[in-house]
């Protein structure tokens, strides 16, 4: 079973208790100044954005087939079977390819530290592993952030959209984007207004590189044999020319005698 989060903007009251719960769960400081920051950073993994009277959360989407985990050369980022995309600083070497590759620009870096790491929402992996909901879902007073089985949440999201066509856009963000994400979003306002890209492909991003990388095992022996063959031909030609010249030389000598 793979878990997920369903965030329904129409139920959100913008109380930011999810931000606070997230901070305390991850041992991060939280005060009014941090609450006012309308962006995520290495020190704030989720934020509630406000547009007029509408809200929208930003957090790691915990993709079904995440670009970050696919590009990580040491496997520090991993998609777990339960849903969360986790990070292991002990493996990380700090190449920051995950940050460059993420279509949602989620992973953040501890730029100020001499021994930095990547920081992002990991969907409360240890809580989820012990059967508890994420901190943000647990604290949410209105049920706008709901934790559960992704398939169930998806069904519920579809039902909500179908039953209230006026309330929601006909779009469950995260259902199809980059092959689907564990976090699903419902909104009445264009997602783009909150910085969510609407032009994302529905293909899982790792497939773009895999279609190139998967050719390497075939390429290496074929190209190797080809190069060896060319080497053999070019040098053989030389040997033959030399042998022929010697023969000719010998013949000429013989002719004179």
């Amino acid at each position, binding site marked *: 079973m793979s878990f997920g989060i369903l965030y329904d903007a129409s139920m959100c009251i913008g109380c930011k208790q999810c931000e606070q719960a997230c901070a305390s769960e991850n041992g991060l400081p939280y005060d009014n100044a941090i609450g006012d920051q309308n962006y995520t*950073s*290495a020190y704030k993994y989720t934020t509630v954005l406000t547009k007029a009277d509408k809200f929208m959360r930003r957090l790691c989407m915990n993709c079904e087939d995440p*670009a970050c985990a*696919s*590009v*990580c*050369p*040491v*496997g*520090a980022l991993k998609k777990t079977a339960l849903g969360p995309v986790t990070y292991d600083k002990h*493996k*990380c*070497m*700090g*190449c*920051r*390819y995950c*940050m*460059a*590759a993420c*279509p949602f*620009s989620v992973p*953040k*870096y501890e*730029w*100020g*530290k*001499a*021994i*930095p*790491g990547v920081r992002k929402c990991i969907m409360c992996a240890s809580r989820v592993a012990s059967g508890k909901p994420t901190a943000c879902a647990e604290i949410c007073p209105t049920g706008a952030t709901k934790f559960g089985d992704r398939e169930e949440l998806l069904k519920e999201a579809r039902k909500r959209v179908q039953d209230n066509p006026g309330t929601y856009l006909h779009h469950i963000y995260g259902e199809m984007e980059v092959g689907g994400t564990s976090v699903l979003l419902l909104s009445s306002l264009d997602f783009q207004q909150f910085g969510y*890209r609407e*032009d*994302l*492909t529905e293909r899982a*991003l*790792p497939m*773009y*590189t*895999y279609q*190139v*990388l998967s050719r*390497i095992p075939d*390429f*290496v022996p074929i*190209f*190797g044999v080809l*190069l*060896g063959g*060319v*080497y053999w031909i*070019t*040098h053989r*030609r*030389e040997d033959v020319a030399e042998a022929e010249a010697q023969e000719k030389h010998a013949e000429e000598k013989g002719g004179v005698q």
Partner: protein
Amino acid sequence: MTAPKVRFTFWKAVFLVIMAAGVYATWVRFRHGLGASTNLSDQFPWGLWIGFDVMCGVMLAAGGFTLTAAVEILNIKRWHSILRPTILTAFLGYVLVCAALMYDLGLPWNIWHPLAMRNPHSVMFEVAWCVMLYTTVLALEFSPIVLERLGWKWALRAVRRLMIVFVILGVILSTLHQSSLGTLYMIMPNKLHAFWYSPLLPVFFYISSMAVGLAMIIFESSMSSKYFHRELELPILRDIGRVLYIVLVIYAMLKFEDFYHRGVLAQIFQSSYEQRFFLLEIFLSVILPLVLLSFRKIRNSAHGLYLAAVICLLGFVTNRLNVTITGVENAVGGRYSPKWTEVVITAMFVALGFAIFAVAAHHFPIFPEGKAHKPTLRKRANVRALIPEMLHAEN
């Protein structure tokens, strides 16, 4: 560029200033971290150090595999005399790339991790392995020069016998990682601008690395002839110039086909931030060198070849910087320009490259016998003379 003799020259002074600034910048980087020493941010996790030191560093060292393939595999014997300096350039390039990477990595002491922790789905994993193996191969390709000097006959024979294996390995590894530096960006279809994001990106990186490898051979030979007062191997450089012309034509045709099929041609004529950088890149990397090399007088003259090669190098450096920086700026919403510390570190590695080449050329038999360099003949490098000569080459 710096003569090992204790004499104070202009370039030595420049070198010392850069090194002093570099040492200070190194302290800032490792004492205070990436935030204090770079303009990198959550929006721009990659900047000058990846864009130039790594992307361009690997590209500029591509002469090694290009020339070894031509001489050892295609058996083009008359190019043999420029093999050693080219391998030295390539080897130095890769060593410096690895050193520069230590500055960019957030946790550089973990650089060995890809050896122990596998993720075969990661392009970076593949690049890490290829670069590491190829640096080893280059060391082996360079080793006969050291072994000759040491007089270790047994080892020398073993290496010479295995040389073709090293060469073939080197060409395969280079093909893989030169193209893979482009594949790194394949996973960003929604981030990299359409001028640069293409399914052919790995192919463009590979072909351009060959063009740059050839241009670097011309550049390095010209510099060596200038500063070591060696006879210029003009007939070879003319050949190289012709091959460069062909590679550039192939690159240009593929680029056109790619733009045509992806429907991007019209964007070339629409004014935009990316368009200006793209035009700069394409003029320098392809159009200007092709125009220059079309004139027989230019392509047969030492200065003309030098000029075309330098312009071509600048063009492809622009290309790599466009892919890493210009092409993603609008997608992430911001502009990046390097901090002084980033520029200084980059300058330090370029300066080190020149200096180590000069020292190595002084101590090892890099250049062919017969025309062996005589240190006593070394004269003070006259740099200012180079510029007017370059200008004259156009006429």
